[in-house]
């Protein structure tokens, strides 16, 4: 059955105008259909879609705590297996609830081999509590806990945690990075993940108008630039087979990283020193020099 024209995610939620998270969630639910149970880590998505006594979810949904979306999903999987029922189990977590706080629960879920699709919608900081840096915040980004000033003109001083690679190193059956601006690629990966038995992990980039400091109408445009500049590559790794990693999209001509950084207030300070931009460009060039050979359309 194709449920793409049905909505399992209702309007009236409190997510900011221009937030990318509901676009991601809306489409994953459409592709999964009504036979789905969702677990949600604490975060913007959880808070803004289920302000008691109202919910935006039209599928069974549960939130327990910040760290255990994957653990709750594991329990649901165990229960359904015992009952002999086949249901899509999807866990949604932000970057805080996934790469930092929910890391051990997720690692355990993958190790135990639960039949769950874990979706990380990565807006690169703790946006719900007021833009604090997370393990997924990229180098050079301003946040309220990686402030920019004379003592630190850069912002966050550490690179992004390579979460997709970490989960792939668990030999998970399916790990992929995706971007809703590359819509067909995104849809394909969601469908593929749902068709595979066992633990699946999708790392989806999700822009945050409030924390990234950009115009709400530019959400998709900026997400597109993240991949067009090469900063957020789209790839998939199956069964931990890094040698057969597959990059699913490679820009014909890479855009300079400035084009991605410029519209975002969180990177504004980087333009004061051309060395910072050069460093980011060098990081991207090095990544593609090393992994570009895995481009297999």
């Amino acid at each position, binding site marked *: 059955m194709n449920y793409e024209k049905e*909505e399992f*995610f209702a*309007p*009236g939620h409190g997510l900011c105008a221009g*937030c990318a998270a509901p676009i991601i969630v809306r489409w994953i639910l459409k592709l999964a259909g009504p036979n789905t149970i969702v677990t949600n880590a604490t975060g913007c998505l959880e808070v803004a879609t289920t302000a008691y006594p109202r*919910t935006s*979810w039209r*599928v069974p949904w549960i939130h327990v705590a910040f760290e255990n979306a994957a653990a709750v999903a594991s329990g649901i999987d165990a229960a359904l297996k015992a009952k002999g029922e086949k249901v899509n189990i999807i866990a949604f977590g932000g970057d805080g609830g996934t790469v930092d706080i929910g890391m051990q629960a997720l690692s355990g879920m993958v190790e135990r081999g639960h039949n769950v699709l874990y979706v990380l919608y990565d807006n690169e900081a703790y946006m719900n509590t007021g833009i604090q840096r997370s393990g997924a915040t990229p180098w050079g980004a301003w946040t309220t806990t990686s402030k920019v000033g004379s003592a630190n003109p850069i912002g966050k001083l550490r690179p992004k945690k390579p979460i997709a690679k970490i989960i792939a190193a668990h030999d998970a059956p399916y790990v992929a990075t995706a971007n809703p601006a590359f819509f067909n690629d995104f849809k394909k990966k969601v469908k593929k993940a749902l068709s595979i038995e066992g633990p699946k992990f999708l790392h989806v980039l999700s822009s945050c108008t409030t924390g990234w400091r950009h115009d709400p109408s530019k959400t998709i445009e900026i997400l597109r630039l993240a991949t067009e500049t090469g900063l957020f590559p789209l790839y998939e790794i199956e069964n931990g087979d890094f040698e057969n990693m597959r990059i699913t999209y490679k820009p014909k001509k890479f855009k300079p990283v400035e084009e991605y950084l410029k519209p975002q207030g969180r990177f504004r300070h980087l333009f004061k020193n051309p060395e910072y931009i050069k460093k980011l460009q060098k990081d991207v060039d090095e990544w593609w020099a090393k992994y570009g050979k895995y481009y297999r359309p």
Partner: protein
Amino acid sequence: MEVITRGAVIPEPGNSVENKTGTWRVFKPIIHYEKCIRCLICWQFCPEPAILLYEDEETKKKTPAPKEPLKRLPVVEIDYDYCKGCGICYNECPVNAIEFVKEEK
């Protein structure tokens, strides 16, 4: 006083439709159907969702289109009860059929 359900369970799916988030809007998207090629990109990227898809013959036919054959395709309408006016539809429309104007209240 309202009684809280056990475990704060919300028994009614999707009842957030009671929150009319259209009041948030500062700018308002308006579709100019005479330019709309019915590609559905705005519907695809709407985060609310506040862009609704209509597939019934009546709506498809009665809505203007730049070319007559396009009237065979599904058409969208903006639900202003929920549209927060983010402008993603306006920014992504490939034929600039969506105008984005200051909301008048």
